[in-house]
């Protein structure tokens, strides 16, 4: 089914709470990021290094993935490959079934959203409980994340207070953020101990050492990956990096770009299941590596750059479109500029092509991207591919052919501008949606071409 971006955006624009919540949050995150990078030269150097590291990784992606598998296996981590979301869900389900699991606690993972894991498991009678506070709120509200690192950013504290009051037993309405967080913590704490399975994402998977790195702020990621007897991590194949020394610059870029933190509160490095002399940690660790269109992106030299993404969310924080319509309006798992690049490549331009139009090519996203992904160029490239499809808008194709006929023929162009200036008083007062919000521009009495010819003749 085709995704109707524009209709969804119009709906979102009409909701003042979306406008307010996002504007406030995005302003806050922009300021935080800016404060975290006080030195422009250092930032430029670091971004360039991040770009290089990820580009080097991509240039050897198949080899590094093999190396990752080999070293993870040596460490006792079971590695699984999934080409599609369905395969990934089946793999995870089969591991859970082997352990007769009933309850899984989850750390934040956008790839798990990508494969709709919660719904899949629910249908199999397995409860998957989100333990990141934002994700917990979103799950409680039966919604989806509206931001890749701040999933509940579309809600303000009043809305969350009402949600907790409605959905959680014995919870009274309170707008105290501390009390609300306390409620969530109390409930989740018990679940960590009850759970048979811990699920998590991965921020970086180090090929050289077979290490899974997990960045988080709440400690829930550490609970999910250490308390339950089985830990299943899922990630996209692009999260692999070559060596451990690649991590410090990437981590620094990630946390500073995302939330303006120099380092996250927790940084977990998972290298193996619990060893015989260790007192904690899961008995089994599984890693599911998801393709879902990524190897297709890898084939195209330009679009391959999409795979450098470290999912910091800075592009959406700085996007003037995202800031106004929020994440749900995109109707996709990944919203904002990176979503506009990733989703059409995963799900196809016929379905997700329209969202590439939700961009003024202002370049704010590309300017802040910590790994220098030229997001506007990639959006433009996808528009080009869309314009080559049989399903392209016929009206638009005709309009550009006419445009070329006029602007590509100086004589016709002269006639056109002559007519437009001479008939300026009858030029249309209403030109579609432009004049719903603005007055129509009126051609000048004479064109610049004419004024210059007249100057010469003086």
């Amino acid at each position, binding site marked *: 089914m085709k995704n109707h971006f524009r209709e969804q955006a119009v709906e979102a624009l009409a909701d003042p709470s979306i406008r307010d919540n996002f504007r406030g949050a995005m302003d806050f995150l922009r300021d935080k990021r800016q404060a975290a990078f006080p030195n422009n030269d250092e930032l430029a150097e670091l971004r360039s290094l991040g770009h290089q590291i990820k580009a080097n990784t991509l240039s050897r992606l198949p080899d590094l993935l093999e190396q990752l598998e080999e070293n993870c296996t040596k460490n006792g981590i079971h590695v699984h490959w999934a080409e599609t979301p369905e395969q990934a869900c089946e793999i995870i389900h089969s591991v859970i079934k082997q352990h007769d699991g009933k309850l899984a606690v989850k750390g934040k993972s956008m790839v798990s959203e990508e494969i709709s894991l919660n719904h899949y498991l629910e249908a199999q009678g397995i409860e998957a409980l989100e333990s990141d506070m934002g994700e917990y709120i979103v799950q409680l509200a039966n919604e989806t994340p509206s931001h890749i690192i701040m999933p509940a950013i579309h809600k303000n504290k009043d809305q969350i207070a009402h949600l907790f009051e409605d959905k959680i037993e014995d919870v009274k309405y309170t707008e105290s953020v501390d009390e609300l967080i306390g409620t969530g913590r109390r409930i989740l704490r018990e679940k960590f101990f009850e759970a048979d399975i811990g699920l998590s994402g991965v921020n970086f998977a180090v090929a050289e050492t077979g290490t899974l790195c997990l960045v988080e702020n709440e400690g829930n990621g550490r609970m999910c990956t250490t308390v339950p007897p089985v830990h299943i991590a899922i990630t996209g194949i692009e999260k692999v990096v070559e060596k451990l020394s690649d991590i410090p610059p990437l981590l620094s870029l990630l946390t500073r770009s995302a939330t303006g933190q120099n380092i996250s509160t927790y940084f977990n490095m998972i290298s193996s299941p619990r060893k015989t002399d260790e007192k904690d940690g899961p008995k089994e660790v599984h890693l599911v590596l998801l393709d879902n269109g990524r190897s297709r992106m890898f084939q195209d030299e330009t679009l391959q750059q999409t795979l450098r993404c470290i999912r910091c969310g800075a592009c959406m924080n700085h996007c003037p479109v995202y800031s106004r319509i929020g994440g749900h309006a995109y109707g996709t798992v990944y919203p904002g500029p990176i979503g506009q690049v990733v989703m059409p490549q995963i799900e196809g331009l016929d379905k997700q092509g329209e969202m590439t139009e939700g*961009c003024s090519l202002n*370049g*704010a996203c590309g300017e802040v991207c910590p790994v220098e992904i030229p997001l506007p160029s990639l959006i433009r490239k996808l528009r080009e591919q869309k314009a080559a499809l049989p399903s392209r808008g016929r009206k638009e194709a005709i309009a550009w052919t006419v445009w070329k006929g006029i602007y590509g023929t100086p004589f016709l162009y002269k006639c056109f501008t002559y007519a437009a200036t001479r008939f300026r008083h009858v030029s249309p007062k209403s030109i579609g949606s432009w004049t719903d919000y603005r007055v129509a521009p009126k051609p000048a009495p004479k064109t610049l071409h004419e004024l*210059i010819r007249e100057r010469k003749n003086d």
Partner: protein
Amino acid sequence: MNTTKTFKANKPKKIYFFGTCLIDLFYPEAGISAIELIEREGVDVIFPQQQTCCGQAPFNSGYSQEAIDVAAMQIELLSEPIPVVVPSGSCASMMKHHYPALFSNHPMCEKAVELSTRVYELTEFLSRVLNVVLVDRGKPVKVTMHTSCSARREMGVTEDGLSLLKQLSQVDVCEPERASECCGFGGTFAIKQPEISAAMAEDKCQAIIQTGASQLVSGDCGCLMNLSGMMEKNNQGIRSAHLAEFLLKRTQTTD
């Protein structure tokens, strides 16, 4: 990224002026003003009459072949090795930064790359190449400037426009809130996503009005058309003009 040859050492004797299609039809005074600002520094201005459009709109819409066909004609018209001055950050950026990629698999690739090294946005040319000195002859006025996203992020000329304005002693330049955020124009974006575009333009207009300035200037007529069009529709009277027109008027001697 910055491949501009420096003509600083010796001021060029002549330059090409690429007027842009928007200025040609809607804002010719801006073009004439820009030409006069350049000519009064003793530089000859050549305006090839066959010029039409840089091709940015179809390029941004994914219609690259149409863009190439029209862009190729402009490249041929601007072939002498002299600077090309463009009174628009977005059209200048199209020619400077996007032509090389657009023509990368085209027989005219070399010409496109060569041209790109000679392209200047107007304020950049006035301030960095001609080092113009402006003497303000106008009355005190509060002005706010909007820098287009291409001028800011691709051409990197925000400071050039501001430094020219700041040379004017009677002009109080005030920056709107969130100055670096897009005004919502985006060429065909304003047509294809009118509601989002309008939401962005509304915020920008509000920020401009909040500065208390009585005059809005910009180096890009697309943004001006968007913002002044909305302010006029909402009866929010604030004058707007291309920066070139404003600079010329402020510095002309009245005879």
